């Protein structure tokens, strides 16, 4: 069969899966007074459609910021405005000011789901297809396999099409950035990434690697000659993109300041709910939030994040290759997720995207991490009534990815790039590291299944109502910490030689 038909079938399959998931419930369905993210997105359409730009981010009589106030950068607001215009055409009730609050109907759900799909079809999916075809190695069949697993990653599907968000847009734009950088179009890449940043501020998790890679590349080309030119070109692109996105808010400094204040809500605390990062897990032992003042929490998390990001960033700065860039993306986003301030459980998607990029290079570790990341959001899925799609998509992803990449057979020490560990723990007796990794993988998958089962089937102990969510987040946290260490070591060990890669394929 020709490659084009395999690719089309893959894409069609993944789109069908997305639509299948979207038939299920969404966050806050039928739960007044606050509803959930679905209502938030609908409310933003209502606000952006009916109010002048100057009022979007301000608390006014018509814009109650306590009820799902807009707290994403301007591009999200423009996207909402666009959707609102279409909604108005179909049914004006959907975006009527005040009266449409908490509007729910099957037709509206269909419309909202369709907007997610359209955004995905326009941005995320083409970027994924192009990435797999231009920037991953192997035969065309191998590329199709990579594409299939890339697009079937359950976490993103479940959050966007189940829970309801538009992560596909920001992640897709970031992916376009990665793609452009990989193909050597640095200015276009930085533009795409600036757009991503202007869609969702959480894209900052990826900012350092982009910055370091481009800076490192410029320095390598010579800061006095072509490098300088490149740097200036990129800087101008970024500034212009930002300026265009923020244009309506630039006339008045108070406007811009208010937007920034809304985007970075420092007052909301170190963490909310149960999230699989360091602070929430540490909270089991030490109640950090009561021990430290709000300011020192902020400084502490800032310092920790910086420390965790620094090694990979410096490495990338000195060796700006695409391989290092991909690893740095993982390391940076994971470090941010684990240590930064005000992290949501959904932010793990930001780390998942770069790990998806590594599916072809480090299959076993990538699959393991992706599975753990989906698992870490399990309490959220249960709250939204997405148990069945969660189980189905996770199982399908696990099955297809391990089979298509032969992940378990391709797990020799060399292929896992565990050489670094040997150097680190030279004093240890010689163990079969690959075998240990494989067994850890099995045990962890079984544990995830068991934890899912107990969460669903058993009532928590009466004195600890949050027992299972905490257990889930601590368990996932351990995985993420392990992944961070692993990818840092991979980044510091020697890059894969072309030869050994060819052999693997």
């Amino acid at each position: 069969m020709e490659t084009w038909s395999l690719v089309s079938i893959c894409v069609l399959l993944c789109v069908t899966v997305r639509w299948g998931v979207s038939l299920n419930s969404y966050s806050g369905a039928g739960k007044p007074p606050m509803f959930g993210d679905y209502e938030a997105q609908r409310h933003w359409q209502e606000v952006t459609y009916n109010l002048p730009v100057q009022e979007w981010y301000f608390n006014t009589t018509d814009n109650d910021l306590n009820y799902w106030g807009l707290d994403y950068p301007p591009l999200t607001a423009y996207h909402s405005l666009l959707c609102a215009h279409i909604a108005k055409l179909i049914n004006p009730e959907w975006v009527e000011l005040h009266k449409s609050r908490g509007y729910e109907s099957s037709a509206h759900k269909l419309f909202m789901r369709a907007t997610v799909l359209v955004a995905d079809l326009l941005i995320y999916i083409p970027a994924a297809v192009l990435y797999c075809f231009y920037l991953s190695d192997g035969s065309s069949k191998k590329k199709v396999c990579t594409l299939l697993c890339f697009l079937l990653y359950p976490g993103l599907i479940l959050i966007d099409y189940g829970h309801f968000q538009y992560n596909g847009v920001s992640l897709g734009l970031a992916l376009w950035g990665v793609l452009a950088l990989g193909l050597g179009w640095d200015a276009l890449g930085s533009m795409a990434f600036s757009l991503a940043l202007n869609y969702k501020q959480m894209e900052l998790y990826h900012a350092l690697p982009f910055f370091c890679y481009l800076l490192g590349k410029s320095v390598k080309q010579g800061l006095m000659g072509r490098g300088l030119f490149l740097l200036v070109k990129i800087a101008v692109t970024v500034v212009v993109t930002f300026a265009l996105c923020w244009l309506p808010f630039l006339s008045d400094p108070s406007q811009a300041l208010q937007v920034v204040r809304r985007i970075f809500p420092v007052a909301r605390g170190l963490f909310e709910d149960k999230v699989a990062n360091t602070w929430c897990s540490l909270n089991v032992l030490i109640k950090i939030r009561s021990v430290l003042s709000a300011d020192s929490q902020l400084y502490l998390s800032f310092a920790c994040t910086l420390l965790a990001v620094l090694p990979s960033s410096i490495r990338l700065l000195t060796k700006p290759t695409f391989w290092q860039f991909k690893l740095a993306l993982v390391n940076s986003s994971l470090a941010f997720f684990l240590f930064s301030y005000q992290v949501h459980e959904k932010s793990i998607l930001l780390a998942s995207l770069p790990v998806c990029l590594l599916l072809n290079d480090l299959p076993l570790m990538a699959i393991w991490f992706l599975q753990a990341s989906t698992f870490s959001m399990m309490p959220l899925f249960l709250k939204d009534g997405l148990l069945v799609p969660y189980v189905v998509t996770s199982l399908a992803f696990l099955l297809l990815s391990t089979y298509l990449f032969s992940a378990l057979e391709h797990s020799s020490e060399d292929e896992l790039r565990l050489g670094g560990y040997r150097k680190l723990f030279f004093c240890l007796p010689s163990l079969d590291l690959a075998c240990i990794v494989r067994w850890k993988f099995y045990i962890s998958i079984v544990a995830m299944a068991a934890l899912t089962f107990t969460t669903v089937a058993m009532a928590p102990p009466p004195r600890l109502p949050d027992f299972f969510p905490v257990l889930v987040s601590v368990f996932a946290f351990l995985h993420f910490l392990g992944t961070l260490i692993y990818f840092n070591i991979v980044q510091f060990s020697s890059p894969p030689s072309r030869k050994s890669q060819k052999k693997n394929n």
Partner: protein
Amino acid sequence: MAAPVADSWSWFPVLAFAVSLFKCLFINAYHSTDFEVHRNWLAITHSLPLSRWYYENSSEWTLDYPPLFAWFEFGLSHVARRFDPDMLDVQRLQHRSPPTVLFQRLSVVCSDLLLVFATRECCRCVREQKPSRDLLKRPSFILAVLLLWNFGLLVVDHVHFQYNGFLFGVLLLSVAKHLQSRHLQGALLFAVLLNLKHIYLYVAPAYGIYLLRSFCFTQDNTDSSVRWSSFSPARLAALGVIVTSVCVVSFGPFVLLGQLPQVLSRLFPFKRGLCHAYWAPNAWALYNVLDKTLVTLGVRLKLLQEAELPKASMTGGLVQESQHALLPSISPSVTLVCTLLSVLPAALSIWLRPRGARGFLRCLVLCALGSFLFGWHVHEKAVLMAVLPLSILAVESREDAGIFLVLATTGHYSLFPLLFTPAELPIKILLMLMFTLYSFTALTSLFSGHGSLLHPLEVVYLLGLVVVAIACEIVYPLTPWQQTLPFLPLLATSVYCALGVCYSFVRLYVILLRQEVKSKQL
């Protein structure tokens, strides 16, 4: 896809498991009234004594499948109790709590495991001309995908809601047994199948003639005509014992209760109309349209008086008899005669010149298509009875592959009206595109190097299907006629598809006759 060792079957469980998971995605999708039908049957078989099964009529969806299927529901109901006991209450009509939906959907997915097993057996029987190293070009792989990922089964079973997957599993398993020359097992399976759903009577002629000719007669003459002396009474007796015992197990209890006439009247409700609510794309759809066209023409040309015409509403209701205005009205016996006539040549052919199990398979497809085209009150879903067995032939011969592409595409497209809710529109379009794209590219690459599988005219016809689809699904609902003439797209769909189905039927016959001529020349 990762090109494992050529002979390994490691891909099969992955493919099967993946499709099972895929089916689970549609648990919360739209389901038709068949969902309530089967829930009601669960309730009837679980909470009423055997003697009431075929009398109960609290719900309009009375039990109208043969007893073995009722026993199947009885078995399911014991699992259903653990999900939601309320669904087993006969009086709780329209009960659809989330556990009920989950259970019913999962019961379809799980019973489909039989289809998976049958597919595996069929794939083993496929002849491979040149073993290809490329998994995607191996007939067994292609056949597995065509059967497991069949668009019709996915849509009818897992969205619309029915248990066809498992029934076709029995049929395909029985075909596979015949291909493996285990005729008694094949006959047993078919007898069971008939007692699960009597619609498979459509293909019974193929079974009857084939078993009689190729199993009960042990030898042929040199010109492959029947050698009467080789008749084996023992074999016929064995067949008889098998078929009778299955029927006794199934119908025996009702005969003892003296309820046989009641059971039969439930199984064969001739009070229903010539065509189903949506017209199946068969000969009668063309006949109806001809009638309507003649009437319209007649009225236009002032040859007919509108007031004198009988009020004909052939798409109107589910269960009512219809009258034609100009052409003679069709009675059940006429359809029976037409059906028998249409399958007669095929049956004769395997009697006169048996061509082994593959000849039988071809005859089975022709029987299924013949009765689909000319039967009484045919459902559009019945086209799957021809499409699925034809898949086996399609991966073995070029010509059959071409017919398969035409028949599968038109047959599947004619299922589109089954799903009319907006949320399921993307599902049916995406699934259809996926399956059609796969079947076209896979079969083309399988038979690559011999030119195109389809005649240019066939290509034009199939492309016309796209036009019809866009007009019916997207353009028409936006026009004002949607309110006044809502059935027009259904009519267009079934008429256009009927052409393709009839054409495939004729082509299949042409192949059969050409083989006949060839073997005569030899």
